[in-house]
C-alpha cells in the first residue's frame, strides 16, 4: 500500500513484500476481429432452448387443434347422399372421408334394419352406380337405434289424427314411428350455409344440456358434466378447510421438530402416490369400512341387504379426491404463509392480538393468493383425474343426475358419471365405436375447455387478490 507512484511501472514480481500489486489497466475491451463473425457457441444455446420451447408449443397447439377440430366437426350437419349401388341396393348416406384405398366412409343409419346392426359402411366408388342429393331426404333423431335416414311421407304429426311419422326407407317399405320415439326431424340437404351454422350451434348446445342416450352413443354429456362439477365442488368443500388448517398448524404452531419434519415429508410424498392407490384406499377403507359401518349403524342394513353408503357413490368419490388433493393445498398454503414477513406477525402481536387473532385477521388474509393457488391446483387435478374415481363411484352410464328437485336434493350415495371416465367409456366400451368416436373428441374438448376456463378464472381471481393486497 505504501508504494510510491513510480512503482506502478514495475510488474508484480516485486510484490513479495506482502503489499498489493500496483493498479494497472486491464486487457483491452475492444472487440477482437473474430467477434464480428456470428457467435456460433452462443447461438447454439439459443437454438436448442428456443427449439425445445417451439416443440412444446407446437405439440400443445397440435393437441388443442386436433381435439377441437374433430370435436367441432362431429356436430356439423353434413348433407345426405343417395347411393344407388351396382347390386341394386339404395342407401341414404351421411358421407365422411375418403379412405386411402379410395373407398368412401359414411353412415347409413337405420341400424335396426342393417345386417349385423352396423350403421357405418365403406364402399369403393366403382360399386356405386350413382350418387345424388335429394332435396327431401330427411334425418331423424330417435330415442333408440340411432338416427334414421329416409323420406317423410305426408305431414308427419302435424296432420289431423296422426300420432307419429309415416316414413319410407330409400326404395323400401313404408314405416311408422310414434311421435314419442322421434326427437328431431332435419332436412340436411335444404340447409343454407348459415342454416348449417345455426344447426351446428344447436347441436353443440344440445350436447351440453342433454343426458347421454343409447349406451353413450347418442345424446349429450349433461350427466358427466354435472357429476364432475358436483364431485369437484364437494371435494373443494372438504379439502380446503382441512388443507389450510393443516398448513396453518405445520407453519404457525408446530415447532421445528422431527415430528413436523416427518409430517412435512409425508405430506409432500402423498402428492406423489399414484392416484389408483387412492382409489383402492377409498374402496377398501371408505366404502367397505366406513360406508358399511354407517349403513349398519344408521340405516339398519344387515347381511344380504342392498347397501346404501357401503357402495361406491358420489360422497366417497369426493372424499377420495379430497385426500388425493390435500397435499397440493397444504404445500401451496404453506408457501403462502411463509411469504408473510415476520414484521407483520410481530406488528399484530405488538398491538395486543392473540395468536389466533393474528392468524385470522392478518396472516390468512395475506396468504390468500397462496391458498387460491392450492385451490386452483386441486380443482384442476380433481377435474381431470379418472383412476381413483372408477373404484369409488363413477360408472360408464348413469344418465340420472345425482341431484333432484325432491329432498334430499343431493344424493350423495348415488353413482354418477364423470367427464374423464366418459371419454374412456365412450371410446372403448361403446357397442358402436364408429358412432361414438366423434363424441370422444367432443367430450375431450369440453373437458379441456372446462379445466382451462376454471384455471383462467382462478388465476384472474388470484391476480386480483394479489393486486389488492399490494395496493395496486
Amino acid at each position, binding site marked *: 500500500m505504501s508504494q510510491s507512484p513510480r512503482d506502478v511501472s514495475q510488474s508484480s514480481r516485486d510484490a513479495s513484500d506482502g503489499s498489493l500489486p500496483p493498479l494497472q489497466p486491464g486487457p483491452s475491451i475492444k472487440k477482437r476481429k473474430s467477434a464480428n463473425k456470428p457467435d456460433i457457441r452462443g447461438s447454439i444455446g439459443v437454438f436448442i432452448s428456443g427449439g425445445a420451447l417451439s416443440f412444446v408449443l407446437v405439440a400443445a397447439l397440435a393437441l388443442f387443434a386436433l381435439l377441437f377440430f374433430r370435436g367441432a366437426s362431429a356436430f356439423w350437419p353434413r348433407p345426405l347422399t343417395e347411393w344407388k349401388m351396382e347390386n341394386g341396393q339404395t342407401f341414404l348416406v351421411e358421407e365422411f372421408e375418403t379412405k386411402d384405398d379410395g373407398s368412401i366412409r359414411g353412415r347409413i343409419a337405420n341400424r335396426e334394419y342393417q345386417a349385423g346392426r352396423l350403421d357405418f359402411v365403406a364402399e369403393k366408388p366403382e360399386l356405386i352406380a350413382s350418387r345424388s342429393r335429394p332435396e327431401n331426404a330427411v334425418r331423424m333423431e330417435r330415442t333408440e337405434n340411432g338416427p334414421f335416414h329416409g323420406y317423410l311421407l305426408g305431414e308427419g304429426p302435424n296432420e289431423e289424427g296422426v300420432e307419429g311419422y309415416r316414413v319410407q326407407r330409400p326404395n323400401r317399405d313404408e314405416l311408422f314411428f310414434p311421435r314419442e320415439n322421434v326427437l328431431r326431424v332435419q332436412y340436411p340437404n335444404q340447409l343454407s350455409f348459415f342454416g348449417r351454422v345455426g344447426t351446428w350451434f344447436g347441436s353443440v348446445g344440445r350436447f351440453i344440456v342433454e343426458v347421454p342416450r343409447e349406451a353413450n352413443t347418442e345424446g349429450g354429456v349433461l350427466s358427466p358434466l354435472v357429476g364432475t362439477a358436483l364431485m369437484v365442488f364437494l371435494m373443494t368443500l372438504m379439502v380446503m378447510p382441512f388443507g389450510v388448517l393443516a398448513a396453518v398448524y405445520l407453519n404457525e404452531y408446530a415447532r421445528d421438530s422431527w415430528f413436523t419434519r416427518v409430517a412435512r415429508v409425508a405430506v409432500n410424498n402423498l402428492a406423489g402416490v399414484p392416484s389408483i392407490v387412492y382409489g383402492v384406499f377409498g374402496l377398501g377403507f371408505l366404502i367397505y369400512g366406513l360406508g358399511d359401518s354407517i349403513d349398519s349403524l344408521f340405516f339398519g342394513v344387515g347381511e344380504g341387504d342392498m347397501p346404501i353408503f357401503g357402495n361406491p357413490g358420489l360422497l366417497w368419490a369426493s372424499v377420495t379426491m379430497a385426500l388425493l388433493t390435500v397435499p397440493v393445498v397444504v404445500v401451496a398454503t404453506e408457501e403462502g404463509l411463509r411469504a408473510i414477513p415476520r414484521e407483520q406477525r410481530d*406488528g399484530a402481536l405488538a*398491538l395486543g392480538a392473540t395468536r389466533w387473532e393474528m392468524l385470522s385477521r392478518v396472516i390468512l388474509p395475506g396468504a390468500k393468493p397462496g391458498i387460491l393457488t392450492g385451490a386452483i391446483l386441486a380443482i384442476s387435478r380433481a377435474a381431470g383425474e379418472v383412476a381413483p374415481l372408477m373404484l369409488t363411484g363413477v360408472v360408464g352410464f348413469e344418465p340420472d343426475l345425482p341431484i333432484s328437485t325432491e329432498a334430499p336434493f343431493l344424493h350423495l350415495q348415488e353413482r354418477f358419471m364423470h367427464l374423464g371416465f366418459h371419454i374412456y367409456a365412450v371410446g372403448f366400451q361403446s357397442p358402436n365405436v364408429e358412432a361414438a368416436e366423434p363424441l370422444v373428441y367432443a367430450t375431450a374438448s369440453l373437458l379441456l375447455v372446462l379445466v382451462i376456463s376454471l384455471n383462467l378464472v382462478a388465476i384472474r381471481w388470484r391476480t386480483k387478490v394479489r393486486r389488492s393486497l399490494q*395496493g395496486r
Partner: protein
Amino acid sequence: MTESVVTDAHPESSSRPTSDLGRIAADSASRRSLLEPSTEMVIRSEKLNFFYDNTAQALFDVDIDVRRGQVVAFIGPSGCGKSTFLRTLNRMNDTIPNTRAEGLVELDGVDIYSPDVDVVELRRRVGMVFQRPNPFPMSIYDNIAFGPRLHSKMTKSETDDLVERCLRGAALWDETHDRLKASALALSGGQQQRLCIARALANDPEVLLLDEPCSALDPNSTSKIEDLIFELRGNYTIIIVTHNMQQAARVSDRTAFFLKGKLIEEGATTEIFTRPSHDETEAYITGRFG
C-alpha cells in the same frame, strides 16, 4: 434529572470531540425545556437478565428507570442488546422460542413478567413500532382500527373519529384523508412508518417503543418522524432505539448506552453527549468504535 443546558460557549464542551453532538443535544433541549418532566416512574427494570436458546445471555443485570412523558434513546453498537431490552418491555421476546427473562420489569409498579399479567393488555399499553414499516395488507382505515377492534366493540362513527384522530396525531391526515380505503401498502415508506405509529397510538398506549424506526427511511421521512416524536413527547413515554447518534441527540431527553448486553451509562442526553462518565461511552459517541 436536571436538564442542564450546555451551550457552545462552554469552554470544556467545545474543546471536546463530542461538541457537535453536544451542541445538537443542547439545542433541542433548549427548544423543549418548557416541558417540565414528571418524576413519576413508568418503566423500571432491576437486575434484568435475558437469555436466548436458554444459554446465550444477551442482557446482564440491566437497571433503568424511565419517567413519564420522557423520550429515552437507547444507543450502542449492533448486537449490544438494546433491541432485546426494548422487546422485553412489552414481552415481544415471548414470541421467540427458547428465550428466558430473569429479574424485574415493572410497568406502573406492576411486574410484567408475573404470571397474572395479561400480555394482551400489556401490549395494548406498551405500543411498538418496528425497524421496517409493517402495515398490514389492508386499507389505511383498517390498519388504524386494527388494534382498537381487537380490544373493544366500536361503532362506525367512533371508529371514524379514532382513525382521524390517530392519523392527525401521526401527521398523516392531510396526505391520506381522501384515500382511507386504499391499501396501506400503496403508501411510501415514510408514510407507512407514520401509519404504524398512528396504528400504535390508536390503542391509546402509555409507552411507545420505537425500534430503529428510521433506519429504512430517507432523510426527509426521517425528519418527519423526528418531528412527530417531538410532537408526541409529554403525552406518551417514548423509548427509541437508534444507531444514529445525531438522532438520539435531537429527539431524546435521556440517553442510555448499551455495550455487550450491559447498560453502561444512562443520563440526561446533554450530559451523555458532552460529559460522558465512562470511557466506553465517549469512545462510542466519538466514533472510535462501533
